[in-house]
């Protein structure tokens, strides 16, 4: 319950934060919402000697469209995603996911940056970023760089963010016509980690054929899984149920679940398919103008 001692800094600019991370050369951890890090420290499963609190850095919390992208600042609270009418209208996958993350109290402090950077295969936003083709903007001592979501997740709790870098922004391409997105997960009990989850983006042409697709899976691998084969299987196909089922089967095959308290691997694999199908159905309905 009681975390071990640590030094604490609350810089007021990204540059100062980076300077601190560099100074402590990998011994410092970024504190954003703290609702993944502090629980680990309270159980003494993590004991960083330095915390760099980035919550005092102004201008890191926003949701806006600019330059062809949806841009979300790293310290945007997860509940702010739920409150955004822009997201509900144009990026409902994020509204869907936000509602299913943890609980409303955790979401008042938990950040978008934390949810995409923590690297837990049970986090929900990574699958969304994979489905949307998101890009992460990082800041570090050597300057700024971007990493596409598809290259971001390396292993459990290991992402492309280096020990002296921090995420500053998440970018998602603005939607095109006849685009639909959706996210859903199933869990043993609300707020728990997923037994399986899936996020999808589809774009249809006028005849109802799929011209673009992206699928991400939660909780069925060492990281969030980018189901590229399943998405590829949809391209050029009519978005009828038979083809959605087929793509779901491919996604199922791309999942790599392990058996644990959230279910046997066999079950999770099957659920990866079921959920992919369900979010594809929803995304297609939204692409056609439904909800």
């Amino acid at each position, binding site marked *: *319950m009681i975390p071990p*001692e640590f030094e604490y800094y609350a810089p007021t600019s990204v540059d100062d934060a980076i300077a601190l991370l560099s100074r402590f050369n990998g011994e410092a951890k970024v504190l954003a919402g703290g609702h993944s890090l502090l629980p680990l420290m309270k159980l003494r499963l993590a004991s960083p000697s330095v915390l760099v609190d980035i919550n005092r850095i102004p201008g890191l919390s926003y949701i806006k469209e600019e330059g062809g992208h949806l841009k979300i600042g790293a310290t945007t609270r997860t509940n702010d995603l739920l409150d955004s009418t822009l997201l509900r209208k144009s990026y409902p996958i994020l509204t869907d996911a936000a509602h299913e993350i943890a609980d409303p109290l955790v979401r008042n402090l938990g950040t978008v940056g934390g949810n995409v950077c923590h690297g837990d295969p049970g986090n929900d936003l990574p699958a969304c970023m994979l489905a949307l083709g998101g890009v992460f903007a990082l800041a570090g001592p050597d300057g700024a760089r971007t990493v596409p979501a598809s290259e971001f997740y390396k292993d459990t709790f290991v992402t492309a963010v280096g020990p002296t870098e921090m995420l500053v922004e998440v970018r998602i391409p603005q939607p095109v016509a006849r685009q639909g997105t959706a996210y859903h997960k199933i869990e043993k*009990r*609300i*707020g728990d980690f997923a037994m399986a989850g899936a996020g999808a983006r589809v774009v249809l042409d006028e005849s109802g054929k799929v011209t673009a697709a992206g699928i991400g899976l939660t909780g069925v691998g060492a990281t969030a899984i980018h189901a590229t084969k399943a998405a590829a299987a949809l391209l050029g196909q009519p978005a009828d149920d038979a083809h959605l089922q087929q793509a779901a089967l491919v996604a199922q095959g791309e999942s790599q679940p392990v058996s644990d*308290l959230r279910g046997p691997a066999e079950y999770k694999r099957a659920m990866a398919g079921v959920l992919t199908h369900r979010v594809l159905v929803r995304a297609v309905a939204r692409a056609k103008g439904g909800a």
Partner: protein
Amino acid sequence: MSADAPHVKGGIGQSILRKEDARLIRGKGNFVDDVKLPGMLYLDITRSPYAHAKITAIRTDKALKVPGVLAVITGKDLEAAGLAWMPTLMSDKQMVLPTDTVMYQAQEVAAVVADSRYAAADGAAAVEVDYEPLPVVTNPFKALEPGAPVIRTDRAEKSNHIWHWETGDKAGTDAALDGSAVRVTQDLYIPRIHVSSMETCGCVANMDPVSGRFTIWMTTQAPHAIRTVYALVTGLPEQNIRVISPDIGGGFGGKVPVYPGYVLASVASIKTGHPVKWIEDRSENLQADSFARDYHIHAEIGATQDGHVTALRVKTLADHGYTDAAANPSKFPAGLFHIITGSYPFAKAFVEVDAAYTNKPPGGIAYRCSFRVTEAVYTIERMMDLLAHKLNIDPAELRLKNFIPPEAFPFRSALGWTYDSGNYAGALRKAMEIIDYAGLRREQEAKRAKGELMGIGISSFTEIVGAGPSQTFDILGIKMFDSAEVRIHPTGKVIARFGTKSQGQGHETTYAQILAEELGLPADDIRVEEGDTDTAPYGLGTYASRSTPTAGAAASMAARKIREKARVIAAHLLEVSPDDVEWKDYAFRVKGVPGKSKTMAEVAFAAYTNHPKGTEAGLEATDYYDPPNMTYPFGSYICVVDIDKETGQVSVRRFVAVDDCGTIINPMIVDGQIHGGLTMGFAPALLEEIQYDEDGNIHGGTFMDYLVPTAVETPNWETAKTVTPSPHHPIGAKGVGESATVGAPPAIANAVMDALRPYGVDHIDIPLHPWKVWQALHGGGKSA
């Protein structure tokens, strides 16, 4: 009740608001962790990561160097004082701290005393322990095999078999089963669960070196029993021990045992001369404190061809962890499991239970279970449904056909219980009507034709509570009576103290209501206190739904003793003979002379200002109530579930609970108890379990993994009542706190299995995780 009928404000049957709420809604409760004393120190505990290991070394030097740490206590320190081991409430032994071997993961190994909570935590993390792992025993069947590693080498008998207990007519039951036209056999496992009250356990122990008084604020449901146990174990004189159980954030049985932390804090206080606070973390609570269930049951039921039950035979293996610390009444090591013939008149029955040691924490009955009645009711109600399916008889019809009829009460069961009263068919019919059972079966038929999964499950349970009559019930030899001490002040106000201890059940309100009814004084004028052993009369505490049947009865009896004396005083005031005075419509009235009367308040004043010659002044009485029998609340629950075929997820669409707890003191409070109890029945059926892997590592040891229900999945419970008073209780009340936890799990399990009938699956053990249902839907076979 018409507006004109005589009534007292806050009497029995009224849903008055609770007196205890005033402080709780303002955040001004006094829970153990709120207690703050000058010079108070903190205790934290170093725990074993291994389930079974020899301790080869403990190094405390680093811990002692942590700023703020004052002392480290190990098993060797306690051994010198004869305190390394202490008795359990079942007359087995448990360790306070090990001297050489740890026997479960998270077992206490050393205690650190420091001047702050934070320093104590740092100290506990800094104690270094070397372990030599030993073979781990987690499977109770394997524990009983010859050659299994012996866990309790301290016992004379070198085996993991704790005891064998049986009751009933073995030969007669075997013969009856052999002669039965229909027999159904089923293995059922009820996994380990943990009650997880929102407040964890803790204490503040204060040995005052000047006065020699030892005071301990403790999260305990049984303060007097604790005081006596402390006196016997420590040698401290009992009059110098004061146990204070203040506001308790939920108990449910988990706050009955004596945990090592209490003893360690007490030792630390005696050693340092300062108050010492110990508050466990949630993880410690889940991993080391008393669990519940863990019964491996083999049940066989026999019936005639037309569905009349004939015999019941049950063999159970009980996994007790490393010691028998289940707080059962001493004559019943398997608790009241032999209520298992349930609501049905089995002519023959036989039950046997064997208990085994394993490398797990001890316990067994801490989850609102009425001493193993949850296990019994789950078994019989599942078996009745299995029988109904085998016979192709509707499960409601099978029950109605078999119920013990109202005229058969008092009913003596084949296993020795005398049920006081019941109207089982009345409760089931009411539930069926409320939920439109016939309509649901029609809906189910239509859905089945389309391949949709919907299930209806029934549980018609008989509870057994109110422990208990002194010839059969004791804990460590202390008889299980309970008590009320009632005193009326000159201005007609009342103070009453009890030997029980509420942990949310609302005794400050409900006992006041009983007294209001019996004394004719408004409940607002009656102050109820519990939990301070210096002032409360001796009692065995609150658990197993015993308070209303025992202390509630004591309240009535004490009030009636007061009324007897008050009648004499009233006669004196009315200038008539006491024989001419009767208590009627809440006042003392001269027989045959309307208008000549005295209220209790007037009598109270006279008791101090004008008491008659030959009578003592004052107006008070104490009653120690020895119940003549247990009470037998009952009910019928009907649950409707829908199952998502693709995911196996179970959704409870409706749940109707008809309860009968006899006379209802406060309908609002009774419903609250039922809502909470149903939720604690829903949880084990669908969500909660604690598992151990082969190395004795716990799975489900934090709230991240041990999932208790939130408001989202908890159904909107529908409740109704029938009222069948207990003939032997002074106000006909039976108690209700645990009925719903007892009755709900089989209703839900039966509903799920009913939904899966087309798939030919007989039984799936709870909790009914989605993947278990899914596996059954995808060719899981007969029995999972």
